[in-house]
Structures are given as structure tokens and as C-alpha cells.
């Protein structure tokens, strides 16, 4: 059932908010008063409620079923975390009220920092980055600041594996670096021959600024040569940026600081389960090594002598500056800390193990009907390619859409790019064996159906969804990015 846009429902004079009558004081807006209507529709509260409740039911969600998006880590979002984030001492505090009146909020930031640094075995963390990509920026900015501080501004080349998230090269460029791609080997990991060729003997004074490596990588595999990679990059005078998107496969079992990492962002919304909210807000605190920690951005929390907390808000000459207004995403700090404390060191380790176990269970249970991209066990996600669909006429996209009709959210598809028609499945630790068994059963029957030549049901999929397949080409060719009143439709389509 289609739901109209609010603009098609509302009328200008209606409102869902009652306010006292203004007194008609003389304005001090100068000659800047807005004239005429804004054009917003007016809806009563019941109409608004119903509109958004109905719309919500057109969404799939982790609370409704398996959401096996590889590299996105859709895990259970405990409601305890929502509750603590809404406590007034965190949710209703202004970022610029005197620090003496925000001690509880600052203490949360301090405790969170302690947990993150301890889990990573790293000496510093910058909390302010507002998302994973922002954390990448933070790490790379810190590397650049360190290089500039050391007078090494010729070091501008950053190595990035071809299987990296697109954000890695984008970030490197945004920080003024050039990107040099490293190929993957047949095992899905960094091609050490190629890497050594680039780095061996390069020396401290090379143009190498560093490497950006995801670990476990985007194929769901641990980079087993990571210690050598770290030492090669350090020998070349570069720094090791680790993309922490997949840190949830390591928490409690491996500490990035033990791997030679100089900077790593942590997606609080992936690893520590702050809700994805349909696309954010995220939070990307970035841990930093001794080499980089003096270059961290402001603001950050420090303990005072009397056991209280203070904020350092103005950068010294080493800090690379400020990344955003205020102190980062407090709302995510409370949620992720509640998540960590609830699990504790034992629970976090167990969660990591269960995530890896679940992924391997899916991989093992499907490997006879689907084609795994690489041999051997995986970490937290199982990667399949489309060889098992060869000749069926069914493509990865069709397979994904058919999963919708089975009641599941599709897995990540066509990523990583190094694998043809990739299907990346990350069940996370939140799935029970029962749910996984049903999921595996569905996937098996889909694979068998494809192989049996029932291509039509794939091409037509989804059928049991609020909408059929959407025309994304038309959307991009003639972008309609906003509603316009009916008379103006022709114009808007331009």
C-alpha cells in the first residue's frame, strides 16, 4: 500500500505542535524578516504518527530477521543502550556549558577511552571522528601531521590494497596523498611479493607515507603476514593505518597495538553495536600509536588533579587541529560503553568467537552448493563468488533479490571487487543456531533452484516486498531529489 508524501497529505494551516500565542513584540530582525510561506505541509500529530509508523513497516531491520551484510556488521542493538543514552545528564547537556557542570559526561568519555585503548593496546584515542570514514581521515591526518612535523613532506605515497573499501583511497586523496594499489594474491590476502617489491630497501627516506590495510581484510581473512607488513612499512619510514571496520573479529583475542598498527578507527556502530539508524549517525574513534598520539585532534578529555575531568579544546602546535564542532558523538559513547561493560572482557571475547564461529558455520554449510571464494576457514564473514551460478542466467543481484522473498535482507554483493560477483555474508554473533539453520536452508534451496534453471523467479524477485525492483538508472539519469508542487513537476524532472 503506497504511502503519500507528507506534502501530499498536509495543509498549510494545520499543525501537530501547540505553542503559546506570541505577544506581538516589536521585531529586532532588522529588514531580514522572511516573507511568505515556507511551503511546508501542516499535519496533526495523529496524521504524523501514522505516516511514519506506516513508513517504518516498509523497512527491513535487524530486529526483524537475519541481516547478513558483510563488512557492515548488523548485530543486535540492546535497548539498555538506548535507555542510558537518553539519561538527561548525557542527552540534555550543552557542549559548551561549563565543564564543572558536565563532569558525568566527561567521565563517560574518559572511561570509554580507557576501554578502547585497553582493547587495542594503544596509548591514545581520538574520540571525535563522527563515523568510520571520519576516523580514517583522523588517522591519515595524524600521519600527515607527523610527517610534516618531521620535515618529511615528500612522503606522500600511500599503499592501498585493491580490495580495500572505497573510502580508503578516497580518504588518502582527501588528505593530500597519492594512492598506490597493491594487488591481492590467490589466497585473497596482500600479495607479499608485490608489496616487498615496492618496499624492500626503500629506506626511511622513501616517498612512502604509509599503508592503509583492513584487517581482517574485506575478504573476511586475517592478513597473516601482518607483522612483516608492519615492519616493512616502518622500515620504509611509513606508518601503518589499519581500517578497523572488521575489528569485531578480533576484540578480546587480538590487539591491534600488538600488530604494529599506528592508527586505527573503530566503528562504534559496527563493533560496539550503536544502532545504524538507516544510515547513521556513526562514530569513529581512532586509536593512535606513540608515534602519532601527540598529533591527535582536539578536543579531548584529561583528568584533573582533583579527580575530575577537563576538556582540552585548543590545539597545540603538534595537534592537527579540529575535525568538527564540539566533542564528537556523545550519544554513541554512552551506547557503546554500555555495550562493552555489559559484555565485559569475557563477553567481548565470546562475542568475537561466536561471530567467527557463525561465519564459518555458514561457510561450511553452504560450500557444497555455493562456491567459496577462498579455501580454508574465514574470520567473521564468509565470502562466496558467483561460479556456482555460472550458466544459470541468475546473477548475484538476482540471487540477492530472491533472498528478500525468502524473508531475509540480502548479503553484501559485488564487494570486494577482487572476487567475481561477490557475496559477502556476515551473520555476526547475534544469530542463534536455529536462525542460521533456517537461513542456510533458504540459501541452499535458492542455490539449487538457480541450478535447476528456475531463472524467472530470480529475475522477478522480489515479489514479497513493499515494492518490486526499482529503476535506479532512471533515478540517476533524471534525478528528482525533492517533491515539487504538481504544477511544477515538468521543471523538477530536469
Amino acid at each position: 500500500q503506497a504511502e503519500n508524501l507528507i506534502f501530499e497529505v498536509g495543509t498549510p494551516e494545520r499543525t501537530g505542535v501547540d505553542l503559546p500565542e506570541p505577544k506581538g513584540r516589536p521585531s529586532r530582525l532588522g529588514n531580514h524578516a522572511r516573507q511568505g510561506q515556507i511551503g511546508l505541509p501542516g499535519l496533526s500529530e495523529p496524521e504524523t504518527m501514522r505516516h511514519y509508523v506506516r513508513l517504518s513497516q516498509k523497512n527491513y531491520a535487524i530486529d526483524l530477521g537475519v541481516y547478513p551484510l558483510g563488512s557492515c556488521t548488523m548485530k543486535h542493538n540492546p535497548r539498555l543502550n538506548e535507555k542510558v543514552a537518553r539519561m538527561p545528564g548525557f542527552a540534555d547537556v550543552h557542549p559548551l556549558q561549563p565543564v564543572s557542570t558536565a563532569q558525568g559526561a566527561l567521565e563517560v568519555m574518559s572511561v570509554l577511552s580507557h576501554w578502547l585503548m585497553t582493547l587495542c593496546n594503544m596509548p591514545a584515542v581520538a574520540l571525535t571522528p563522527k563515523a568510520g570514514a571520519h576516523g580514517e581521515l583522523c588517522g591519515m591526518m595524524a600521519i600527515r601531521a607527523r610527517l610534516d612535523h618531521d620535515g618529511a613532506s615528500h612522503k606522500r605515497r600511500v599503499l592501498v590494497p585493491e580490495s580495500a573499501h572505497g573510502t580508503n583511497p578516497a580518504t588518502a586523496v582527501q588528505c593530500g596523498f597519492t594512492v598506490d594499489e597493491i594487488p591481492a594474491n590467490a589466497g585473497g590476502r596482500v600479495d607479499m611479493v608485490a608489496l616487498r617489491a615496492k618496499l624492500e630497501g626503500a629506506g626511511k627516506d622513501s616517498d612512502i607515507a604509509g599503508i592503509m590495510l583492513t584487517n581482517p581484510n574485506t575478504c573476511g581473512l586475517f592478513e597473516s603476514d601482518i607483522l612483516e607488513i608492519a615492519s616493512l612499512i616502518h622500515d620504509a619510514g611509513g606508518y601503518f593505518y589499519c581500517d578497523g571496520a572488521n575489528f569485531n573479529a578480533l576484540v578480546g583475542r587480538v590487539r591491534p597495538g600488538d600488530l604494529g598498527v599506528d592508527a586505527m578507527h573503530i566503528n562504534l556502530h559496527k563493533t560496539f553495536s550503536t544502532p545504524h539508524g538507516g544510515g547513521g549517525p556513526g562514530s569513529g574513534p581512532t586509536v593512535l600509536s606513540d608515534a602519532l598520539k601527540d598529533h591527535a585532534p582536539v578536543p579531548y578529555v584529561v583528568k584533573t588533579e582533583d579527580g575530575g575531568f577537563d576538556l582540552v579544546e585548543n590545539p597545540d602546535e603538534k595537534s592537527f587541529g579540529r575535525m568538527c564542532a564540539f566533542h564528537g558523538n556523545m550519544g554513541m559513547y554512552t551506547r557503546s560503553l554500555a555495550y562493552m561493560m555489559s559484555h565485559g572482557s569475557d563477553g567481548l571475547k565470546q562475542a568475537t568467537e561466536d561471530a567467527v564461529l557463525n561465519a564459518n558455520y555458514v561457510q561450511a554449510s553452504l560450500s557444497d552448493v555455493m562456491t567459496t571464494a577462498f579455501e580454508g576457514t574465514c574470520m567473521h564473514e564468509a565470502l562466496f563468488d558467483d561460479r556456482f551460478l555460472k550458466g544459470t542466467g541468475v546473477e548475484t543481484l538476482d540471487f540477492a533479490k530472491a533472498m528478500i522473498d525468502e524473508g531475509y535482507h540480502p548479503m553484501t554483493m559485488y564487494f570486494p571487487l577482487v572476487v567475481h560477483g561477490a557475496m559477502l555474508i556476515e551473520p555476526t554473533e547475534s544469530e542463534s543456531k536455529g536462525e542460521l539453520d533456517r537461513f542456510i536452508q533458504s540459501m541452499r534451496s535458492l542455490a539449487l533452484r538457480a541450478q535447476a534453471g528456475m531463472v524467472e523467479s530470480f529475475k522477478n524477485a522480489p515479489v514479497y516486498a513493499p515494492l518490486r525492483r526499482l529503476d535506479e538508472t532512471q533515478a540517476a539519469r533524471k534525478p528528482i531529489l525533492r517533491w515539487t508542487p504538481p504544477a511544477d513537476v515538468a521543471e523538477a524532472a530536469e
Partner: protein
Amino acid sequence: MRYLPLNKDDRTQMLSVIGVDSIDDLFETVPKAARLDGLIDLPTHKSEQSVEQFFQRLSNKSTPAGSVPFFCGAGAYKHHIPASVDHLIQRSEFLTAYTPYQPEISQGTLQTLFEFQTQVALLTGMEVANASMYDGSTACAEAVVMAHRVARGKKSKAILAPGLHPHYAAATQTLASTLSIKIDERECRMGRDDNVINHIDDDTSCVVVQSPNVFGEIVDLRPIAEKAHAHNALLIAVFTEPVALAAITPPGEQGADIVVGEGQGLGVGLAFGGPHVGLFACRQKLVRQMPGRVCGETVDANGDRGFVLTLSTREQHIRREKATSNICTNSGLCCLAFTIHMSLLGDAGIQKLATLNHEYACHLADVLDAIDGVSVENETFFNEFTVRLNKPAADVVQALADQGILGGVPLTRLAPDGDPNLLLVCATETSSEEDIAAFGSALTEILS
């Protein structure tokens, strides 16, 4: 562990299906030297009750804005948020969904984004808007980088007007610092913005002007737009309080090419500074240079209207090192909150809300201006303005806080080199007359 569904039997069975003996076998690709034995030195798992008590204890150690007379603004604003907003954004289907990459089962999020984009475009008086940025300051920084991109390397300078929120200027400096963008940041001081005009030249890719500016002063953007356009530069208009745009002439009507700002004031709480929601609007012709996520209208296989994320050819997952920005999330849930609050308000509601804010601020200005040692510095303002005190503002604010009044933001909190006696104060519809009176008397006493 309450969050982990597997039990011992499950694990044993699953290991056997996988064909390994123990969980350790699954970590064998990790170099031995990097494998941890035992537990990390952090507390073990805790009951929900004890975690809740921990946070309750810390929450009690801060002073919530709603519990005291409260007059802080300067980039974050306290407004009353209808209860239905927070209820709706907590619905599982919104809260626990991912980025809407599969549009067939994400129309809830997508249609909301489309409504959001339209609301932002209407409020700013612009043609199009994106599906939100991290916050206003990062939106501002991205806008400067975008203007640089529009100039295709032919211009090297970006001018930041003196009334730009210092945090916005700093975030912009940071992002621009690694690219070849020269930032011409005018000293952050109270006063007319005319001098910006004199710095615009052919090397200028953009000029960034905030209105109402950080001092609360409303800026006439028209002459700046004119000069900028004459030199083929873009005018980037910035705001920090979305409610203001319901009261003042929108930047889109004054010639702005890009409008960026903070949407937190509507639907999103203070949250000690985050998460907030960056609004980003621009002219239709610039849309393919616009950073961030965008939602567009299309049809499905049956011809029914639907919405998808679109223009992804600009984005990092397609363009990698050639992307318009490295951003790959928006502030989804906050923009949902913004949209719901806007939907509830409607045209009549937001205009009334803006009027009330302005009236309370006018009243506050009258009360403060009447105090010995206080003078209101603004010629115009919306809901915040600047007063000059006869003492350092930071000390006065601390003295007020000690009396249980959160009495605004000293300029030096934002700009350490700024005039120490300037205080930024703000009133909204949540500022009662009693609160204003209490502020007035406390200030009178402290300054006397």
C-alpha cells in the same frame, strides 16, 4: 551472556560441522605472537541493572539543561522536542536498519530522506539538498572543498567571514589544510561583515558567511553574493540554528550557491554536542559536485513510485580516489528526527516557533541591557545575541553556574584570542519568564 544466543551445545555441534576441534583453530591464521591468551584486563560482564546504575550515577554528575535556567546557544540549541519524535525514531524498523542499499525493503528510510531533502530545500530556499552530513561544521568544510572542486583547480582561495562559528572555521581549516586550498580566515570579531567583500577576487573559489552569525547578528547576504558572483566565486551561506530560517530571509533568496548548517535544533537534542545533523543544500546545477548521500524518486517494475539512493557515481565506493568526498554515512536517525519534528510543526508551527524564540530573546535582551555593566552589542538578532560585560565572561559564567544558572557561552570558549568580556546568550521557547528574571538578578548581583 544475555546478548549471545549460542550455548555450549550449539558451539560444539557447529565446530563439528565446520570440521575443526576448537575455536582456536579458527584463529590459526593469526600469527602466534599476536594471539592473546586469557582475558584482557578489563572488568567482566555486568548485569543490565548494574550497567544502568553506573550510568545513572554519572548522569547525576552533570547538570541537564532542562533542570536549570538555561541560556547557551553558540551552535547548539535547546528546543522542546515532541514526545512522538523520540518514540518514532526508536521503532525497530528505523533504528536497527542499515543504509538503504536494498530499496525494495528500505522505503521507510528512503521516503523519509526524500521528505527530508525537500524540507531542507524549502527551509533554506534552495533547489536541492542532500540526505544530511555528520553535522553543520563538517558540512561547512565539505562545502568549501566542493567549491574548490567546482573551480577545477583554477582558484586557490576560500574566504571565511569573521562571524563564522570558530569551530566551523577550524573544521574547514583542517579539511582544507591537506588540499591546496588557501583559507583566508577573517579574525573572529563582532562587527559588520562588509570587509569580506573587499577580499573577494578572481582567485576566490568561495566566500563563507554565517547568518545569523556566531554573535547572533543577521547578515545581509545579497551584496556579498553579488560581489562573489562577479568574480565567479560561490557564496556558501552557513547557519547553526535551523529555526532561524523560518524567521529570516532564507539564504536561497539572497543568492547563496551552497547553504550548509546545523539541523540539531529541530528534533535532535543537545547530546553534549553529538550526534547532530548537518544540512547541505545547493543549486540544482551543482548537484553532481555535492558530497554525501542523495535520495531520488523513481519507479519500480510495476511502475509504482519509489525512492532509491542515487547519483552514486560521485561516491567513494564507485569512484574510490576520485570521489567527491570520503563520506559514506549520513546522520540518518537524526535526520529522521529532524524530518518528523518538521512534519509536526508544519509551516504554521515553525513560523510560530520562530516568533516565540525571537520574542523571548528580545525580552532577554531588554532585561540584560538594563543591568549595570551589561550592554547588548547586536543591531539585529534572532534568538541569540552578544553582550559585553564589565568583567571576563568566563568568570561570570562560572559564577552563574555555581548558582545553578547556565548563562551562556563566553566568546573565549570558542575563540581563545577573542574579546574576553563578550558573552553569547540565547533564549528559546524553553526559556520561561521566570528563568529570564532569575538570570537577570543573578547577573546583576555578580557584576555589582
